[in-house]
């Protein structure tokens, strides 16, 4: 923390109750978060290289009948965890690109260009913020089955996941609010210099908005990584399914040891990514609270 003083003052720290109590709470809490955060992962690591027999009869014992390393390559090849993880990445990155494209261009119109019809669009976007996602679940599914006017079905294409994620009012409004805070003088100056709208967008607004673009990108990726129901509905083809949809289906047909190594692989990659980028990650998530306010 950057500030010098917290709730507990230096004087407090000299009191015996605080001097003894604080470390105790600290240790207990540390054990708490350690058990909650790392415990299940360690258990999964252990079970990922155990025999089915061991996992079922002695889940809390350490390898009574030895370590089985071949579970890991087996899960990768036979359960095809690799390809499901690939699908997950394709879905997450595609959703991120489509979301960023729609919300930056849209916010650019509503905040910077400000055409006469802008407020109408803003109001229509804002209105959807009040309506929870549940209202459009079924009709959205029907839209994907047969796109109105176009008449094509997006089912079993990645577009079915990429495009709907872009229609998020929250992202558009957050982006618009950020663009609103860019000084108008900069925009006027660019216009006097004869910059076209496209140039203003790519050379002025976007570079100034890197922080918010980063946060929206991160939140979109996290959201799409966690999504289950929607890809379950629109991607019935197993070859296209992300890991979240594939795992429960696979779990029904594979033996427990392979299941655990598959789970381990599915957990490993996001955990490693998180540990590597933890600073940016936690900052982005923390900022999302400020945005919601």
């Amino acid at each position, binding site marked *: 923390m950057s500030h010098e003083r917290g709730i507990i003052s230096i004087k407090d720290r000299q009191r015996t109750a605080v001097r003894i109590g604080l470390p105790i709470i600290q240790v207990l809490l540390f054990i708490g978060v350690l058990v909650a955060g790392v415990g299940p992962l360690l258990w999964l690591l252990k079970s990922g290289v155990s025999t089915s027999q061991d996992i079922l009869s002695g889940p809390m014992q350490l390898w009574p009948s030895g370590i089985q390393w071949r579970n890991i390559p087996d899960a990768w090849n036979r359960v095809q965890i690799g390809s499901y993880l690939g699908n997950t990445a394709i879905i997450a990155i595609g959703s991120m690109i489509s979301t960023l494209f729609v919300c930056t261009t849209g916010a650019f119109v509503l905040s910077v260009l400000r055409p006469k019809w802008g407020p109408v669009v803003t109001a229509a976007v804002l209105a959807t913020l009040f309506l929870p996602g549940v209202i459009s679940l079924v009709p959205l599914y029907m839209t994907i089955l047969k796109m109105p006017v176009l008449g094509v079905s997006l089912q079993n294409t990645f577009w079915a996941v990429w495009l709907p994620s*872009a229609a998020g009012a929250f992202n558009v409004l957050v982006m618009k609010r950020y663009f609103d805070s860019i000084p108008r003088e900069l925009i006027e100056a660019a216009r006097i210099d004869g910059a076209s709208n496209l140039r203003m967008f790519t050379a002025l607004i976007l570079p100034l908005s890197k922080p918010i673009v980063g946060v929206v990108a991160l939140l979109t990726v996290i959201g799409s990584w966690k999504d289950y129901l929607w890809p379950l509905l629109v991607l019935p083809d197993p070859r296209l399914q992300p890991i979240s949809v594939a795992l429960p289906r696979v779990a029904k047909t594979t033996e427990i040891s392979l299941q655990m190594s598959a789970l381990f692989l599915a957990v490993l990659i996001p*955990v490693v990514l998180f540990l590597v980028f933890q600073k940016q990650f936690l900052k982005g998530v923390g900022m999302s609270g400020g945005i919601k306010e």
Partner: protein
Amino acid sequence: MFQSTKQSRGGTGSIVTWYRSGGLSAVLFAVPLVLTFLYFSWGPIVRGLVLSFQKNNLVTAPEWVGMANFSYVLTDPQLPQAALNTLYFAALALVFGFPVPLFLAVFVSELRSTGWLYNVLSYLPAVVPPVAAILLWTFFYDPSESGVFNAILGWFGIGPFAWLNSQSLAMPAIVLEATWAGAGATSIIYLAALTGVRTDLYEAAELDGAGIWSRVWHVTLPQIRGIIFIMMLLQLIGTFQVFTEPFLFTGGGPNNATTTILLLIYRYAFINGDFGAATALSVLLAGVLCVLSVVYHFVTRRWSTT
């Protein structure tokens, strides 16, 4: 005639000025937003309202049935149970999931050098894909004596419990997992809010003889009450639409003890093929949640202006 030529010239002139001032490119820039919202947001919302008054199973032509879907849904004997279950889930999630991250955040904000370690550790569960976490916890909740939780509790001579197979324990078990998965992220958001707390007030409170707990209660919490209220409302809106956890943990069982509203909607639409009833129930739920969102909007507006 003179008048009309002048007018038409004025008309083309204004189109040219409109074009020169970037009117066309504004339209082009708006196309992605308007198209995606028409197809995937505004369109489905309107369609949902229409659909709730129709009989539609995607096979035969839709048929106008008035309020029949609503009366069917409202008289479904499963609805009261599902509504109660959803409320129960929301209440439990609030009781478990609300104080834990708040306490964690206030405590971590007091730690100068090791705070980041708590953050990383408590955020780890949020990184685990929810579906993987649920499958893992399903295994932890194994009702046999050698199940992970039963084995651990067995060391202390407690249990064994039936967990997900028990009508009374299934819902708390689901909420426990959901809290484990969500507490870290919420705590990080509180922590970010806590950095904005004015620390000179602690000084003043201490001079006035306020103890540590009363400083937390009277100085810290009131200053982040805005974000606390927001997180509570967002959590409520989220928990009212809970689906993945009960769907994967229990499928709504045992004996419908964990059937939530969204699970019911899913069954109507994707198992019974009754899209009209499904949207009717969605519209009803959305109506309730809409009230919450409006409250949320106005309260945050008031806070941001004062």
